[in-house]
C-alpha cells in the first residue's frame, strides 16, 4: 500500500507528468470530438492520419524549441529565431528560384548550404553580442528579431517568392521509410542533440554555465565559448525549421514566415519544465511542450475556430501549465489543502519574503 502510494507520488511528481497529462487530455478531447482522429492508415506505403499530421507540422517547432532549450539552459533567451527562420527560408527560395532547373538536386543542396551558412552567421552575431560584448540576451537577440525581418524582406524584395522545386518540397511534405521526411529530420536532430548533451559532458557544462557563468569559468569551463555555441546551434535549428516551413508552402514570405515562432518555442520549453532562469534543461519536456502547442493549434483548426481566437485557448493552457509547475503556486495550494482553509495568509507571506531574501 505504502509502496504503491510512493510509486504514485513518484509518477505524479515526475516533471513530465503534468505536461504529458495535458497532452493526453488534448488528444482525448480530439478523439471524443472526432472519432476518426486516432486512425492511422497506410496509403501508397506512406502513413497518413491526424496524429501523423500533428507530428509532421510540429517538426519545425520541435527543432526551434530544441535550440531554444539549450539557449535557455545557459540563462539566455533567443528572440531572433523567427527572423532566422524567415531569412534562411528566403535565401534558400531566392537561390532556387534563380536557377534554370529548379529540380536539380545539386542546386537545391547549394541553396540549402548558402542559407544554412547565413543562418550560422546570424547565430554567431547573437553569440558575439551575448558572450563577448556581454549584452543581455533578451536585448541582443531583440536587435536581430527586429532587423532580421527587415533583412528577410530585403532578400525577397518585399515579394513572396514562389518556387516549383521537387527536391525542396520533399523537406516539407516528402516521405522516407513510410514516415514524413520532416519527422525524420526532427527525430535525427533530437537524437543528435540528446546524445551530444547527455552522453557527453556538454549538457552538464551548459547547465553549469547557466547556473553560474562566473563560477563555471573559475572551474575551468570556457563559459563564453559555450554561450557562443548555443546561439549558433539555436540559429542552425531555426534555419532547418525555416527550410521546412517554406518547403511546406513552396514559397518564402519575408514578413510572415516563422512569425511568433520564437514565442511558441519559448512556451514549449517552459511547458516542458525548463526554467527561464537557466541551469537545467529537459529536451524530452521541450518536445512534449512543442507537441502540446501543435496539438492545440491543430485541434482548434479542426473545430473551425479562427486561428486568432485559438490564441485564447493557448493563453489558458499556458497559464494553467505554468501555474501547475510553479513552486510558489504548488506550495500555496498545498497549504490551502493541508491546513484549515481559514489559515491566515500572513505566515505564508512572511515565509515567502524570507525565501526571497535568502535567495
Amino acid at each position, binding site marked *: 500500500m505504502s509502496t504503491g502510494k510512493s510509486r504514485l507520488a513518484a509518477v505524479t511528481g515526475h516533471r513530465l507528468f503534468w505536461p504529458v497529462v495535458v497532452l493526453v487530455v488534448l488528444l482525448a478531447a480530439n478523439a471524443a470530438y472526432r472519432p476518426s482522429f486516432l486512425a492511422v492508415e497506410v496509403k501508397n506505403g506512406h502513413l497518413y492520419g491526424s496524429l501523423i499530421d500533428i507530428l509532421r507540422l510540429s517538426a519545425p517547432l520541435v527543432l526551434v524549441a530544441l535550440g531554444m532549450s539549450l539557449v535557455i539552459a545557459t540563462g539566455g533567451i533567443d528572440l531572433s529565431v523567427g527572423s532566422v527562420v524567415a531569412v534562411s527560408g528566403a535565401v534558400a527560395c531566392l537561390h532556387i528560384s534563380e536557377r534554370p532547373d529548379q529540380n536539380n538536386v545539386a542546386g537545391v543542396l547549394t541553396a540549402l548550404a548558402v542559407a544554412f551558412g547565413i543562418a550560422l552567421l546570424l547565430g554567431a552575431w547573437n553569440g558575439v553580442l551575448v558572450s563577448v560584448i556581454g549584452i543581455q540576451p533578451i536585448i541582443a537577440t*531583440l536587435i536581430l528579431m527586429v532587423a532580421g525581418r527587415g533583412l528577410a524582406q530585403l532578400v525577397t524584395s518585399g515579394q513572396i517568392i514562389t518556387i516549383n522545386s521537387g527536391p525542396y518540397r520533399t523537406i516539407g511534405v516528402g516521405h522516407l521509410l513510410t514516415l514524413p521526411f520532416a519527422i525524420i529530420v526532427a527525430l535525427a536532430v533530437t537524437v543528435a542533440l540528446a546524445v551530444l548533451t547527455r552522453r557527453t559532458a556538454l549538457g552538464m557544462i551548459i547547465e553549469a554555465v547557466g547556473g553560474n557563468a562566473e563560477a563555471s569559468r573559475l572551474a575551468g569551463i570556457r563559459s563564453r565559448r559555450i554561450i557562443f555555441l548555443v546561439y549558433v546551434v539555436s540559429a542552425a535549428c531555426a534555419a532547418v525549421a525555416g527550410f521546412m516551413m517554406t518547403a511546406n508552402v513552396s514559397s518564402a514570405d519575408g514578413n510572415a514566415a516563422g512569425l511568433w515562432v520564437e514565442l511558441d518555442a519559448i*512556451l514549449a520549453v*517552459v511547458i516542458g519544465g525548463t526554467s527561464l532562469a537557466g541551469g537545467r534543461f529537459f529536451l524530452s519536456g521541450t518536445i512534449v511542450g512543442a507537441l502540446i502547442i501543435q496539438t492545440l493549434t491543430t485541434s482548434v483548426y479542426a473545430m473551425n475556430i479562427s486561428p486568432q*481566437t485559438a*490564441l*485564447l485557448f493557448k493563453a489558458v493552457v499556458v497559464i494553467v501549465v505554468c501555474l501547475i509547475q510553479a513552486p510558489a503556486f504548488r506550495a500555496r495550494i498545498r497549504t490551502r489543502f493541508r491546513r484549515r482553509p481559514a489559515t491566515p495568509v500572513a505566515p505564508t507571506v512572511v515565509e515567502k519574503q524570507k525565501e526571497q531574501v535568502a535567495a
Partner: protein
Amino acid sequence: MTTSQLTGGVDRAPWWRVPQRQVPVLATGALLLVMYGVGVSQYRAFSSIQVVFNVFIDNGFLLVVAVGMTFVILTGGIDLSVGSVVAMTAMVTAALLRDGLPPALVLLIALLIGPTLGFAMGCVIHFFDIQPFIVTLAGMFFARGMCTWISSSSIPITDGFWTGVAQERIRFGDSFVTVSVLIALAVVAVAAYTLAYTRLGRNVHAIGGSPQSALLMGLPVGRTKIAVYTVSGLCSAVGGILLSFYTLSGAPLIAVGMELDAIAAVVIGGTLLTGGSGYVLGTVLGVLVLGVIQTLITFDGTLSSWWTKIVIGGLLFAFILLQRLIGIRKK
C-alpha cells in the same frame, strides 16, 4: 576614489561633465537633432513645423504605451501584452459604440480593461513567482484572442463624440495638433512627475536597482510590482483609445508587434533593460527617433518600408553598445 568623490561634493564636478546616467538620454537627443537636421537639409518641406506635429500625431498612442513600458522595464520586468491590449481596447470601444452605449460609459469600460488585465498579470507574477515574460506573453495571447472573438473583421466607429474628437484640430498658427497629442503629452507629464517625485517612482527605481535590497529596506516590493503592470495596462488602454481616435475603427489585427516598438523606444531612450535607471523623457525621445525615421523614409520615397526595421535594429545595437560602454567605464 569614492571618498574623494564623497568629500568633494557636487560643486567640485566641472560643469561640462554630464552625470553618466544622463549620457544615453543626451545621446538620443543628439541623434534626434542630427536626424532632423538631415531631413531639413535634404527636403524643403521637412522644415515645416507641421512635420514635427505629425510625428506626434502619428505616434501619440505609441508614446503613451512606451511610457507605460518604461515603468515595467524600470523594475526589471517586461510587458509583452501591450500591443494586444491596445488592439483589444480599440476593439471593445468600437463594438460597444456600435451597440449604442453612451460614449462616457464606453470610455470608462475601455479604460478599465487594460488596468484589470495588468493587475491580474502583476498578481500572477508576484504571488506565483512566474517569469514576467511568460505571464505577459499569455496576456498577449489572451487579449489578441479576445479581439477576434469580439469580431473577426474591422468595426468602424461612427459615434458623434468619437468622430468629433478625432477631427478636432487645435491650431497653432498654420499648423495643428489633435486632441490625442495633448492627451499623450499629459500622460507623459503625469508619468514623469510620478517617476521623479513620488514614493511610487522611488520604489520603482529601487526595485529595478536591486529587488533584494528594496525588500530589506522595507519597501513594498510586491505592491509596486503589481502597480507597474497595472500602470502599463492603463497606459495601453489609453493608447488603445487614442488609436481608436486615430483610425476611427477597431480592427483585430491592429498594433501587432507594437510591444517591440515600445521596447525599442524605451531602450533607445536610454533606459537600462536590467532596470533601475532611466527617464520618461528618454522614452519620449526614443519614440520621436522612431517617428522621425519613418518620416524620413516616407519623404525619401525610394526606400522601402523594411529599411525602417533594419535601421531600428541598427539603432538598437548602437544604443545598447553605448550603454554597455558606459557600464564598463563605471566599473
